[in-house]
């Protein structure tokens, strides 16, 4: 059996293939049936083909079989034998979903009967779509390349006979016979009589290129499995044999794999090799060679992988990142030694060495910076990876919901740390489901409100400095403030008095509280017991923020703000009661100093005023229960998320530094207000503050700010 590692790589590659497949399918669908881009079609076909090959290599027969069916269908589509229609796109996108499920199972070593059955049903469906309607058979005739003018005069029966002959795969000939007007009837029946034993005279037509005045020309369309020479020999005088081709070979789709009829009509295989020569240079690829039949795709390309990328486990990149972090520490140690040496009094050798060492340390720093950036770049992947999956999901959900919704996506090319992108798919899916389920109204209702009947749900991403902003926007019903207030009070999340003091924004944000859901009935789409609070928690884990804006009857927008990367962040190092803490710089708005006399209190809580805005003044030492010093002046780090502001009082500013945040292991996961730790030059662990969680904790309506002192 295949080694687990190889299987993992297969799963990764197969997933990539499915992603490509899904993306191209969407493009094809958007372009509509009018004019599918042949390159696209080929790309999709190749993707399905590689998947089939890979799957069967790993003994995943169910996946291989389904991929095979998809390949057949795509092949038919590519060769223009099956029209691109809704039914086809639906079947294929369902196939992608099922394949993804099965891949997931395979990666866990499972193989559920349910998905196998689903694959079976889908396989049959794909086959049905591929066989299609009669339209498909006309395409077979297109392949033969009969002059359309000639075909126009065929009767339906003749056309049917011709089709049958094509399917049998016999050679098709045009016999042009020129007979004198005097005895053409006898001579024609004579010719017919001689041809009959060799095959079938499909049609006898007066030639479109008549002979001279005294003669009449006929075109006989003749199908025969016999070699050319034999047919030629049977001809009577005045008859000329030519292959029934009006199209040059080159007009056919270029790749040589045997077309779908080969699979649909097994008989083709049986006879084609015998008559291949008779048909050349006919439009069919004559008698596929044995090699071709085993591997019906371009052999030389299928051996190479689709892209020249190296797939790397993110854990290895983390390892590299850690090594770089260590190198940076060593560099700062060298710098320190160099500095010490340089301080040596008088012109001495160590002093010179110190200078030299310092120069080298700086060069090292530059290189390390490059290395760090390089590794970070490698971790970045386009959001499109998730957006494509979501677009496919939305398509399905919209169809199932029966609502009329347009789904817009932009910003799929914005890049984010791989870890973040992975973690984003669930929260985004939840928000989109919410938008569809709770936001978008039914067309009747929309029209009543004077809105366009078709609702729009959008998923947009853009980069803004060191952040990526993702918006999930709908133009639906909007959030009902009164209802939110009622529910929040009902569930005991806040008191009525509190809601009366709350700003609109804070009120809306109550929907993120655990146990909040305004919908009474549980819907099939989004009522799965997972609330927006989970979305928020997930985002906080990514050091991200979520904000909500909504107008009644105009729509709702969820705005997600995420850091570009989690691996290395720039942090502000501060000291509180002799302890050092790191505050991620992306949360820091500014740093001010205030005199103790400038502090005011509101309901005994300390506040400061910065540029006309009053905000809570929180002594970090007090929050952390550390001994506090009496001081006349405070440094205040103003941190902010969305519209919320908070001033954190600290004792000392140490400086800015790039830090590699390390998560705290299992037992330390639930330390409040701390997102991880990093190490400084002296190997000391320094806690990284989780500003989002701290603000949440300190600004919560019922948050108690009782002073806590060191125990």
């Amino acid at each position: 059996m295949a080694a687990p590692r190889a299987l993992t790589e297969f799963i990764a590659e197969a997933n990539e293939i499915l992603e490509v497949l899904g993306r191209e399918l969407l493009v094809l669908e958007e372009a509509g049936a009018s004019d599918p881009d042949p390159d696209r079609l080929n790309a999709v076909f190749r993707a399905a083909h590689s998947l089939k090959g890979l799957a069967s290599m790993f003994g995943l027969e169910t996946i291989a079989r389904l991929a095979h069916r998809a390949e057949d269908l795509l092949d038919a589509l590519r060769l223009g034998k099956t029209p691109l229609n809704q039914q086809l796109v639906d079947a294929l996108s369902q196939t992608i979903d099922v394949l993804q499920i099965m891949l997931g199972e395979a990666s866990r070593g499972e193989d559920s009967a349910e998905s196998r059955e689903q694959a079976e049903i889908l396989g049959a469906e794909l086959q049905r779509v591929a066989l299609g309607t009669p339209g498909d058979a006309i395409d077979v005739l297109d392949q033969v390349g009969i002059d359309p003018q000639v075909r126009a005069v065929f009767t339906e029966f003749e056309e049917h006979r011709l089709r049958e002959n094509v399917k049998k795969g016999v050679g098709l000939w045009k016999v042009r016979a020129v007979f004198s007007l005097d005895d053409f009837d006898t001579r024609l029946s004579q010719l017919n009589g001689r041809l009959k034993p060799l095959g079938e005279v499909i049609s006898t037509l007066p030639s479109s290129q008549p002979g001279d005045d005294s003669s009449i020309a006929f075109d006989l369309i003749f199908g025969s499995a016999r070699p050319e020479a034999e047919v030629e020999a049977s001809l009577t005088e005045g008859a000329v044999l030519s292959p029934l081709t009006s199209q040059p070979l080159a007009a056919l789709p270029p790749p040589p794999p045997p077309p779908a009829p080969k699979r649909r009509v097994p008989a083709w295989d049986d006879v084609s090799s015998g008559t291949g020569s008779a048909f050349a240079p006919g439009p069919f690829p004559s008698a596929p060679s044995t090699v071709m039949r085993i591997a019906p795709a371009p052999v030389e390309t299928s051996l190479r992988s689709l892209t020249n990328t190296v797939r790397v486990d993110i854990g290895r990149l983390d390892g590299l990142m850690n090594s770089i972090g260590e190198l940076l520490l060593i560099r700062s140690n060298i710098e320190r030694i160099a500095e010490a040496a340089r301080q040596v009094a008088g012109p001495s050798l160590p002093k010179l060495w110190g200078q030299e060492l310092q120069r080298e340390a700086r060069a090292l720093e530059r290189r390390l910076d490059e290395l760090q950036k390089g590794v970070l770049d490698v971790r970045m992947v386009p959001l499109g990876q998730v957006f494509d999956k979501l677009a496919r999901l939305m398509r399905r959900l919209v169809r199932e919901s029966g609502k009329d919704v347009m789904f817009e996506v932009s910003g799929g090319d914005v890049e984010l740390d791989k870890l973040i992108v992975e973690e984003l798919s669930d929260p985004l899916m939840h928000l989109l489901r919410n938008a569809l389920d709770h936001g978008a109204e039914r067309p009747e209702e929309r029209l009543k409100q004077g809105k366009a009947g078709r609702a729009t749900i959008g998923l947009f991403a853009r980069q803004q400095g060191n952040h990526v902003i993702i918006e999930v926007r709908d133009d639906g019903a909007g959030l009902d403030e009164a209802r939110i207030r009622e529910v929040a009070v009902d569930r005991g999340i806040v008191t009525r008095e509190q809601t009366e003091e709350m700003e609109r924004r804070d009120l809306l944000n109550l929907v993120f509280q655990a146990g909040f859901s305004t919908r009474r009935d549980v819907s099939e789409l989004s009522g799965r017991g997972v609330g927006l609070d989970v979305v928020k928690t997930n985002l906080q884990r990514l050091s991200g923020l979520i904000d909500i804006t909504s107008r009644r009857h105009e729509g709702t927008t969820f705005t997600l703000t995420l850091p570009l990367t989690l691996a290395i962040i720039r942090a502000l190092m501060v000291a509180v009661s002799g302890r050092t803490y790191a505050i991620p710089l992306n949360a820091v708005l500014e740093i001010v100093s205030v005199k103790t006399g400038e502090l005011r209190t509101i309901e005994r809580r300390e506040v400061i005023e910065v540029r006309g805005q009053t905000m809570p003044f929180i002594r970090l030492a007090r929050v952390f229960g550390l001994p506090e010093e009496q001081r006349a002046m405070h440094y205040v780090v103003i941190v902010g998320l969305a519209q919320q502001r908070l001033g954190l009082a600290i004792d000392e500013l140490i400086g800015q530094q790039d830090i590699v945040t390390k998560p705290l292991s299992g037992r330390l996961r639930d330390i409040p207000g701390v997102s991880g730790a990093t190490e400084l030059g002296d190997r000391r662990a320094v806690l990284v503050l989780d500003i989002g969680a701290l603000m949440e904790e300190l600004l919560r309506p019922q948050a108690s700010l009782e002073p806590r002192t060191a125990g």
Partner: protein
Amino acid sequence: MSSQFAALLDRFFYRPDEAVGPFLESAPESDRGAEAVPDETPEEFLAFVLDTETYAVPIGAVREILKVTVVTEIPRAKKNLIGLINVRGEMLPLYDVKMRLRLADTAPVVRASKDVGRAARVLLLKDLEGDAGILVDRVEGVVKLQLSRLEEAPELGIDRNAIAGLGRRDHQLYILLDVEQALS
């Protein structure tokens, strides 16, 4: 297709002398199930001192022994958590077990090596929930104890959940620490 392929590979690489059947019978574990015999192989434990008592943990549970360097205190953490230590880039918790064992009323404040005795060490223990260090006053060394001769801790009227049993060797009492319990 692949199973055929795998079978082919198997046949190709298989050598009859790789068959392990005959060896299994003489393998050391195969007499398992018999009652503990007098010549039982003793297990190795790492013995250490907490206050005035000597404790021990199975040597397999110990990842390494470290000197106390810098410890970062964690605000608002559980009382028995002394702080965070940096073990070659890995951030691990350092716990106090004396409180759990009623050897002390409060956890010590340790921020650097000067806060502990010269003999004090960190025992890094392997644990499913994530490796963790415990602060000990001194490491005694490796001691061999026979599993079959371990005693249960006597009823002392106090919670002794963190004690897995007692071992004796040459008049020295070893209190076996239940690591999982001691850290909770």
